[in-house]
């Protein structure tokens, strides 16, 4: 096949999918991407997460650099204005021309704004792009009330966003019910009741007649029934319309109500022009979801390869969380269609008390599932969808699927019972067969399978089913899903933690005797030391614990490359007096230590020989310093910004809070190190959102963020709770930390722990805030024990001559390690490089 010039118009989700796949699978084409938005493609599906703490950048699906790397020319912020089919080129708004052999239209759709007089007034907005988010936020800042026009899927999602912005929220719907496309009357009524409980006002059967400037609020909506509503902003979410103007201008065939007509191969009426995604019309339908768009892209792509696949339409089943409420709809949820001339049967389970509504529609013979509606509880969605998509025979009593299960009943469907052709991940179109293939090819974990098949990298809705499929397949192959600590303990850290706790075990020897084998190693010993410290908080250099500690814990200092150590005194919140600064300076001068301000707002002193550590610490402890635990898997620093004592923007005293937090949690041992920060206002000068737990001041108290990370794989912390008072803040942190300490793996930072936590942030909130597991008291009392048994390890050590013996360089001599050699650089010492050392050693 020859090299072709491929031009793709539109860089939304589907356009990007097409380009990425084309560039990676067949490098020979010259690909040009032209996007109207000022930025490369991003994840529109998760747009709303920006209102619950995510940054717009987190949504990026690609970058300009990535396109460069894969050889794609991309231009953003310049829309295509015209297609010249004769010359086979497109012309942009700025007049640039791009010739093509094949043209792909992936222009998506735009929000429909009903032609209501006044809908062009400032404050009337739409919700589709990152730029729209900015507009909505800006208007919300100065307003109190927000209205969403449209009670469909997107409208309700938007209502959630307005609520998250702190607005008093209304939903105005023209039709008599919410989510009319997906839900039947019963489901819709239940959903409405649940939404109203969340203080969102729902107005149905309301036709907006005009919008005028308001009296109390900025705008007033006047309805056909004579009523009116005042609001500060209106977001129109009354459906989408395909972006088909280019096609119309170029005389391509379009549908009566819009949409670029395509065939099975996603070709338009001009066979050199394709249309994919939400701008395309197939079988008289627009598919307003990503998965069908991706399937179209696959079909269009295959036209450039030897094995064409066709687009056959797509399933529009959906599962969503709207305003925190689970909603699912599968197939013919209304049950209106006739089946071979006969009316279909339906089964309904409705529980007003628990707010659950489930309905299934089955074929007249009761054998096949035709549709389903779920509100309030989507736990059966995966099972139902598999029955539906794979046309599997239902059990004799189909209602058993939606009736509350007797406890202990086997799940009806699992990874095991599905046929190979079953689609596990509909976003990325991954079948069970592909997953089994990946496992046969050597994948041994969900993570492996994910990276090979890309399953579960879209909406994430299939995560549970993917895990159960992978686990059963691995188990069937006799692969033990091994999370053993090491060869000495056939347990994960979490399991061992419980065994030690329940058995009240206090030493490594006891634990090894009871639960392990062999003699231990450098993996399990420090892990057990950490568990013992988290549970009982003994002095780490106690005789029976000494041999367990990593060298850093063992000598209460960080080993450097030449075998010397660094010393980091605690400087809570980064606040330090002139007197203490002078002490650090004096000590550094006396022992000739290299000094550096760390990235954690404190001072590190490098180059101490092991035998100097006790003397240096005696001087520091005498001046009131405590150990900074720079060596331990423990709390490191709590960074602070200067806060409202000095800063003109500060709204709370961030320094006091940082000091309080640092002093509270110092010394507790954890699966990995812990870092924190407190910022005095939203400008976030302390970078709290990159910490394991971060605190940002608000007018009303504190926002708590959890599970952030800098370092190797940065992760923005998640907003966990807002506007907390001091006491609640500390209570939540106590519980959060203890829950992490109990359940994380060895050397697993909170960020990775969170990424692996089933149920994620919501689950963590349930445990910490709602106490779903009933362990909050236990977590708090465990924390209290640790806090009450705190000791400065260096103080304890220098007071015990027996312990100080360990800090001698040699058992039988007072000499020092002659291999430690320093040279001067910028007025301080540093370890000599190998060549420098050889030269120095031969001279002396």
């Amino acid at each position, binding site marked *: 096949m020859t090299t072709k010039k491929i031009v793709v118009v539109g860089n939304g989700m589907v356009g990007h999918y097409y380009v990425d796949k084309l560039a990676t699978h067949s490098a020979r084409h010259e690909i040009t991407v032209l996007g109207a938005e000022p930025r490369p493609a991003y994840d529109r599906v998760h747009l709303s997460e920006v209102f619950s703490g995510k940054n717009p950048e987190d949504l990026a699906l690609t970058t300009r650099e990535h396109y460069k790397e894969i050889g794609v020319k991309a231009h953003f912020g310049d829309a295509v204005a015209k297609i010249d089919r004769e010359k086979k080129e497109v012309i942009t708004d700025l007049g640039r021309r791009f010739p093509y052999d094949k043209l792909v239209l992936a222009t998506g759709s735009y929000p429909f704004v009903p032609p209501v007089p006044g809908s062009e007034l400032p404050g009337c907005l739409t919700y589709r792009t990152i730029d729209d988010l900015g507009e909505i936020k800006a208007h919300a800042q100065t307003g109190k009330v927000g209205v969403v026009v449209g009670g469909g899927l997107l409208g309700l999602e938007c209502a959630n966003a307005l609520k998250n912005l702190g607005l008093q929220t209304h939903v105005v719907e023209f039709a008599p019910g919410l989510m009319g496309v997906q839900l039947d009357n019963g489901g819709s009524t239940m959903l409405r009741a649940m939404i109203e409980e969340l203080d969102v006002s729902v107005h149905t059967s309301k036709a907006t007649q005009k919008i005028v400037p308001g009296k109390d609020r900025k705008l007033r909506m006047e309805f056909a029934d004579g009523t009116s509503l005042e609001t500060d902003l209106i977001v129109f979410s009354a459906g989408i319309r395909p972006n088909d103007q280019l096609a119309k201008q170029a005389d391509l065939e379009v549908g009566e109500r819009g949409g670029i007509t395509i065939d099975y191969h996603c070709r338009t009426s001009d066979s050199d022009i394709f249309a994919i995604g939400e701008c395309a019309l197939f079988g008289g339908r627009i598919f307003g979801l990503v998965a069908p768009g991706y399937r179209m892209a696959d079909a269009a792509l295959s036209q450039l390869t030897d094995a064409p696949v066709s687009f056959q339409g797509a399933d529009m089943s959906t599962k969503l969380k709207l305003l925190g409420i689970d909603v699912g709809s599968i197939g013919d949820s209304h049950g209106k269609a006739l089946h071979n001339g006969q009316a279909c049967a339906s089964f309904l389970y409705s529980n007003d008390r628990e707010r659950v509504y489930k309905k299934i529609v089955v074929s007249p013979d009761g054998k096949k599932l035709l549709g389903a509606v779920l509100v309030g509880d989507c736990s059966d969605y995966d099972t139902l969808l598999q029955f539906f998509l794979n046309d599997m025979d239902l059990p004799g009593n189909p209602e058993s699927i939606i009736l509350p299960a007797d406890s202990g009943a086997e799940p009806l469907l699992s990874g095991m019972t599905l046929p190979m052709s079953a689609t596990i991940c509909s976003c990325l179109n991954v079948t069970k067969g592909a997953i089994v293939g990946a496992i046969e090819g050597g994948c041994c974990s969900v993570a492996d399978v994910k990276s090979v098949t890309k399953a579960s990298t879209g909406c994430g809705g299939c995560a549970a089913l993917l895990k159960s499929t992978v686990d059963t397949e691995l188990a069937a192959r006799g692969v033990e899903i091994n999370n053993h600590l090491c060869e000495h303990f056939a347990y994960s850290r979490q399991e061992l933690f419980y065994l030690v706790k329940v058995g009240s075990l206090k030493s490594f020897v006891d634990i090894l005797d009871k639960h392990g084998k062999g003699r231990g190693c*450098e993996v399990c010993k420090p892990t057990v030391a950490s568990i013992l410290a988290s549970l009982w908080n003994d002095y780490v250099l106690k005789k029976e614990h*000494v041999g367990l500690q990593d*060298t*850093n814990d063992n000598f209460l200092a960080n080993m450097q*490359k030449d075998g010397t150590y660094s010393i980091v005194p605690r400087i809570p919140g980064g606040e330090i007096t002139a007197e203490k600064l002078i002490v650090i300076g004096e000590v550094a001068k006396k022992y000739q230590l290299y000094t550096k301000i760390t990235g954690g707002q404190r001072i590190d002193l490098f180059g101490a020989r092991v035998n100097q550590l006790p003397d240096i610490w005696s001087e520091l402890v005498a001046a009131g310093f405590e150990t900074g635990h720079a060596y331990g898997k423990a709390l490191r620093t709590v960074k602070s910004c200067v806060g409202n004592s000095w800063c003109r923007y500060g709204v709370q005293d961030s320094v006091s809070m940082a000091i309080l937090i640092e002093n509270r949690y110092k010394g507790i041992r954890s699966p990995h190190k812990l870092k924190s920060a407190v910022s005095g206002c939203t400008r976030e000068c302390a970078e709290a959102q990159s910490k394991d737990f971060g605190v940002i001041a608000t007018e009303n108290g504190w926002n708590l963020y959890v599970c952030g990370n800098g370092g190797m794989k940065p992760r923005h912390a998640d907003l966990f709770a807002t506007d907390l008072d001091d006491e609640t803040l500390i209570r939540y942190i106590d519980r959060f930390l203890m829950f992490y300490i109990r359940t994380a793996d060895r050397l697993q930072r909170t960020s990775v722990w969170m990424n692996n936590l089933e149920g994620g942030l919501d689950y963590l909130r349930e445990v910490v805030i709602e106490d779903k597991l009933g362990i909050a008291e236990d977590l708090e009392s465990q924390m209290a024990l640790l806090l009450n048994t705190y000791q400065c390890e260096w103080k304890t050590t220098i007071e015990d001559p027996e312990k100080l013996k*360990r800090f001698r360089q040699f*058992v039988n001599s007072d000499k020092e*390690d*002659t*291999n430690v050699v320093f040279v001067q650089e910028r007025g301080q010492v540093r370890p000599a490089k190998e060549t420098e050392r050889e030269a120095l050693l031969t001279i002396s």
Partner: protein
Amino acid sequence: MNSAPRPRSSSDPIAIFSLSELQEDSGACVLINDVQIAVFYLPKETPPLYALHNWDPLGKANVLYRGIVGDINGELVVASPLYKQHYSLGTGRCLEDEATRVPTYEISLEGDSVIVTLNPRRHAA
């Protein structure tokens, strides 16, 4: 494996000190004629004492005595505190790198006294 110490003559380079200087399941360092020797005391093993050169040839520093001791598939080892390679306490062999070996020395217990000599310990290759 631990051959009995040879009869001592006064010129033998040797270090003698009390067992109480050592910490159970942990290491310490002795200096004999400017040679640094890491000694390990594992009371539950036979023999209970091991001596290796203190130089970590891969980490390039005198640190082996500060490593954690344990076993890998039954072989007693110390893990270097710098980059965690394992060195066999019995033979000095590096488990991660065939070509690397740390010298081992004769060490024994007489009554309450630990005796370390500069004699290389012989072991099957």
